[in-house]
Structure formats: structure tokens, C-alpha cells
């Protein structure tokens, strides 16, 4: 039997119901949340009165939400650090020796743990009284901060716990990118007398730029919408110190049942995430074209 146009139509017809279900399960809630953001939903009245843009004005004018958004943007700042550490570790574990393969597997483990569990785990590790981190720091005579009990260190703890979990993502992507590099280019550079640093800077970095930007797209969005780590590590405390935009929206919608405000906040964050993604994807497109030309 040959594979012809009518077969394609039959295959499409068979797959469409599943795809339609997925579109319904994701698209419908998304559109409904947009509708909710323009109304005053309440448990007693349901959808309620039309509110226009008042929910958006209210949430954007809320100093608490503004602070939460700032923290979400701060989470973006750790992404370059994740990239740098991921790149360095990928270079280190590149290769097919047994120990490298073993270390690679170990380094990928954090990514397999549920973020909620990661937050709980780091809460225990960072306990100033009985946590392993302070025990080790104290042993070598270093200061032992009250990690999750002080505003600044709590933010650092949240940034670190999230990075710890997702640096392996950078490692995987970089290992794949580095493994796929054209070895003749590297050999040529060495023959031309380039130092290790020059090879890194002028050959490896540019050639892995598409991978860097790919990681940047995924990790930027993920970091911006962080909720699970802060939920279990600090639940937004102490004070409002680690309350991210997503955590604020979660509390508005599912704790205070101000669903319309939460919907409006979600769309504000979606808009910001789209801007971030658009910028990074444009850069990635340019990088892909530059690599293709070379």
C-alpha cells in the first residue's frame, strides 16, 4: 500500500479529536480566565458585573503586586549564572569515559525532584539550627546566617534552591551542543595557535550560542513564573520578601478567592513573559542565522 494524500487525511482525522481535546483543555481555561479578568467574580454571584479594566488597574496599583513582580524579575537575573555554571560543568563532564558518564547522571538528578520537594528539602538543609549547610559553614569557621529567617538571605536561599534544581537543564543542553561541535573547526583553531581561552571565546561560545539562547528562553520564562520553590521554602516570607508574582496570584485566586484579580494578574504576567520570550527568540533567530552562515 502506498502512502497517499487520502491516507494523510485519514490520519489527520484520527488525530484531530485528541488535539481538539488538548486545545479545549488548555485553550478554554485560558480564554475563560481572560473573561474573568473583565468581570467581578465572587463565590456567591458567579461571573458578576462587568468590571472593565478595573481589575487590571487594581492589581497594577497594588504595591504588594508591584513588589512581587520585582522579585519575579529578580529571578531572571540568576539565569545567566545558571548558564555559566551549566556551561562550565558541561565542559567538565564532556566525554564518554565511565566516570564522566557517572558524574553526568549524578549532576542531572536534581532536575528529577519535584520543585515542591526541592523547596522542602532546602528548608531543612538551610535551617539555622539543625541544617547541614550551617553545620558545614560553622565547622570551617564561616558565618552561619539565619537563611530563611532574614529578608535578604531568604531571597538568596530561594534563588539558590531554584538554580540548584535547574542547572542540570543547562548541562543537558550544553552537553548536546558541545558534543555536536564541528571538531575540524576546533582542530583548525589549535593548529593556528589559538590558546584554550581563545578557542573557547572565538569558536566554542559562538557555536553554542543557539543552545545558550534556547536555555535562556526556557529558563527565563520558568524563573519569571517561579512559585513552587518559594511556596515550600518560605511561603513568601519573611514578611513579603520572597513573594513572587505567581505566589501573589495564587494567594489572590485560591486562598482569598478573588478570582478576577488573580485572572487579571495572570494576564499581566503572561504579557510580560511573552515580551521576554519574544526578545530572546529574536536573538536566537539571529544567532541561528549567524551560525548557519559560518
Amino acid at each position, binding site marked *: 500500500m502506498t502512502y*497517499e494524500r487520502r491516507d494523510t487525511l485519514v490520519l489527520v482525522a484520527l488525530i484531530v479529536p485528541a488535539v481538539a481535546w488538548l486545545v479545549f483543555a488548555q485553550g478554554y481555561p485560558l480564554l475563560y480566565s481572560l473573561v474573568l479578568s473583565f468581570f467581578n467574580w465572587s*463565590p456567591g454571584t458567579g461571573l458578576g458585573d462587568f468590571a472593565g479594566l478595573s481589575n487590571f488597574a487594581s492589581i497594577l496599583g497594588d504595591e504588594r503586586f508591584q513588589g512581587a513582580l520585582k522579585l519575579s524579575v529578580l529571578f531572571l537575573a540568576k539565569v545567566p549564572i545558571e548558564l555559566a555554571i551549566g556551561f562550565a560543568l558541561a565542559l567538565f563532564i564532556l566525554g564518554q569515559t565511565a566516570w564522566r558518564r557517572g558524574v553526568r547522571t549524578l549532576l542531572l538528578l536534581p532536575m528529577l525532584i519535584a520543585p515542591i520537594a526541592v523547596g522542602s528539602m532546602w528548608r531543612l538543609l538551610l535551617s539555622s*539550627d*539543625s541544617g547541614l549547610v550551617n553545620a558545614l559553614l560553622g565547622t570551617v569557621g564561616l558565618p552561619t546566617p539565619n*537563611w530563611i*529567617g532574614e*529578608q535578604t538571605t531568604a531571597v538568596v536561599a530561594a534563588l539558590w534552591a531554584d538554580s540548584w534544581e535547574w542547572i542540570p537543564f543547562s548541562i543537558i543542553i550544553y552537553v548536546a551542543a558541545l558534543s555536536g561541535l564541528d571538531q575540524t573547526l576546533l582542530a583548525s583553531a589549535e593548529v593556528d595557535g589559538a590558546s584554550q581561552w581563545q578557542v573557547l571565546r572565538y569558536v566554542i561560545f559562538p557555536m553554542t550560542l543557539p543552545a545558550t539562547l534556547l536555555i535562556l528562553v526556557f529558563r527565563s520564562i520558568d524563573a519569571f513564573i517561579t512559585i513552587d520553590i518559594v511556596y515550600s521554602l518560605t511561603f513568601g516570607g519573611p*514578611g513579603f520578601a520572597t513573594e513572587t508574582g505567581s505566589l501573589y496570584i495564587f494567594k489572590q485566586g485560591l486562598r482569598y*478567592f478573588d478570582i478576577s484579580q488573580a485572572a487579571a494578574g495572570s494576564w499581566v504576567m503572561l504579557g510580560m513573559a511573552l515580551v521576554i520570550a519574544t526578545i530572546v527568540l529574536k536573538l536566537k533567530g539571529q544567532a541561528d542565522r549567524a551560525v548557519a552562515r559560518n
Partner: protein
Amino acid sequence: MERRTLSRQAFLKLGGAGLALSAGLPFVAACAGDSGSESGGLTATYMKSGTYDVAANDFAKEFEKKNDTNISIEAFPYAALRQNNTNAVMAGTCDYNVVSGSYYLADIYDSFRPLDDLVERNDFSKPLAAGLWEQCSINNGAHIGVPYGPDAYALMYRSDLWEEAGLSWPKSWDEFLAALKNVRAEYGDQGITPLVFAAGAPEQLPALFFATYDGYFINDQGKYGLDSAKATEAIKFAEQLLSFAPQDVTAISIDEANSKFVDGEAAVLYGWPSFLVKTASDPDSSQIVGKWRVGEMPQPGFVWLSMWEMYTTDCTENVNAAWKWMTFWSKPENDRALLPKYGVNPVLGSTYRDQQLLKEYSHYFPGEEKNVARAMFPPLSGEPQDFLASTLGDVFTGKSTAEEAVRSVNEKWTEFDVQEPLSQAAQRNGLVQS
């Protein structure tokens, strides 16, 4: 179009897989929504805590034997319980017939059946411990909840250390502060901290404020508001109290605070006694068996009540069975078993005066009963209470001052509407500005 070779067998396999997936997804989704109400009996929700849920499951077995009604117990962690209860009620699924909750369910009070007719018919409220029935939820003038597991935020202290230091239990907060200073002087070098508190659990922070605040929560405009002067003093006093706690107090969780007390590392624990009573009384794990008491809360101040209530949803058809289940807990023999067997506080006055229990819990019952009789719910819905808690967190970590905190809370609280049931409760409890 390029022709590619695909065998009939492969084509049929691929098509069949696609069809199965398309048909299977909606079916799986539909089956996931299966609910307990289809069982023909009752479904009741409780907090998964190793206490209420265990009691509920044990009582359910007994209840089913004595009544011709199946009862299914669904237990969830606190945050999920509140969520699931509210979602089920709002979605109108009638998944649950008896729902556990408290004042924070005020948003959905209208979905619970009034109980006054059943209360009067059965004379239910008379045997309850002092103060409990008055604090039960009232919606549109009718009671809607049956109480269980009451508790009051309290100071639990090392009676042996207190006696050794020649201290008597303070009646006022100034006396309490003086006692803490004494304890620090006597036992500070033995690694015993005068006070421990779960300041690392944000939702607990209002307890420090409530301790010495005896002002209003709703102003004369009918909006949430605090008496600025009294609130500022209460926050400053809370800062003084925390100066007697470990340096990392702002990171200490409820479990950690309880452990410190049970391990003999703290002279006073400010917390929920019911969370502690079983562990502290267990000789295998506690260093303080026979050495601690629940103190009567000093004056003045607001004693924070925690009381679970069972509500029955207005979609429940078998109301009599639901009522029987809800009141099964407070049958004298069951009420009597709650504390020794499950670590849950009883609700009947007679249980608090049971001679055998008094002998076994002489360190617990007297203080607990007095505190519960005085305790009240703060008339705050979720967001105002959380905002207060987080603002206090800013003060206790040095980011804000007491004055700024009160100004900030009063300003923010004007944005919130006071739900009618909470407003009425505040009126009854004298928590409205006059």
C-alpha cells in the same frame, strides 16, 4: 507529492492508536471526576493531621455499625482541605455532605444548611464547654456549624523550672516579661531559651500581635481597622517578647518550636497546645513529661481561638444522617476519648471536669478550658489576616517599624469588605469600634 511506502498493517496500527487516544482522553477525564456522593451514603472532610482524620475514620466504623448509613472520610492537608471544600461547594458538585472548616469559609456560608431546628430539637448546645457555642459560625442569624477540636493559642511553660525559680504564673503581660527575665538569668547558661515561638511560620505571626492587643478589628465606618495606639503598643511588646526567643526565631517552624520545648530546650512555648499534648506526654520522645503546664493567658489581650466546625452542605439530602454524624463526635464516650486517644480537645464541659481525665491531664485541662472560654476568632477574612501576618513579618525582620506597620495595615484594610457573618461575630464579641 512524494510517495512513501507504508504497509497496510502499519497504517492500521497507527490509525488505531490515534483513534484509541482520541476516544480514551475524554473517558479518562470523565472517570477522574468520580465522587463519593455516588456511594449513597455521606462523605465528610477532615484535615489530614494524624489526629482529626484518624478520629474520624475510627468513629466512622463505629457510626456505620450503629446507624444504617455509610460514611466515607476524605482527609486532606489544611491548604488542600480548604481548597477542596470551597471548590466542591462553589462548583455545586455536592461531593461532600459534611465539611470541616472555620470562619475562613465565610465566603460560602450561604451554602451550608442552618442547624438551629436540629440544635433545639436535640438540646445540643447546653452540654458544650463554656464559650464554644457562642463562637460557632452564625449565618443570617442561624447557627450553621457543630464544633469540634477547639484550641486556644497559649503559653505552655516548664512548671518545674518555674517552681525552682520561685516564680508564680503571671496574671499580666508585664509580669510575664519580668518572669522571662528571671528565667533567662537562672537558666540562660544551661542552653534553655526563655521563650520559643514559630515565627518562621508566617500565618502564626498574628498570635504575637493578638497576645496583648485588646482593641477593635472593625472601625466605626464598618471597615477593617485597628486602634492605632493599642496596635502599635502590641507590636512593640511582641518585639520585646521575641528578644527572649532564639536568635533564629524568624526561621523556626511550628514543628521546630514544639520540638525545642519537648526536648527541654525552652522554658515557654507560645503555640497551639493541641499540637503538642500527645508528643509532650509521650515518655519515649519527651524530656518534659510531668514538667509542663498550659498557663492561663495573661491580661489584657486577645486569645486566638482555633475551632473546627462541621457544616452540612445544603445539597445534602440525608440531613438527619449528617446531623447524627456531626453530633456523634460529641457523644460523651467519644468526646472523652478524643484527647487521650487522638490528641484532639473535647467540646463537652463534663469532659473537662471528668475526674479521671483531670488527674491525667491536670497540667493541661484547667489552663486550656479557661483559655478556650475566653478565646475568640479574629473577625478577619483571608487577605486582611495574611496582610497583617506578612506586615508583622516585615517588622520582626527589621524591614519596618511598629508605627509603619499599623499605618500600612490600616491603609490596606480599607480596601477589604467585611463579610456580614464576620461583622456580626465581631459585634457579638465586642471587636467593633464604639
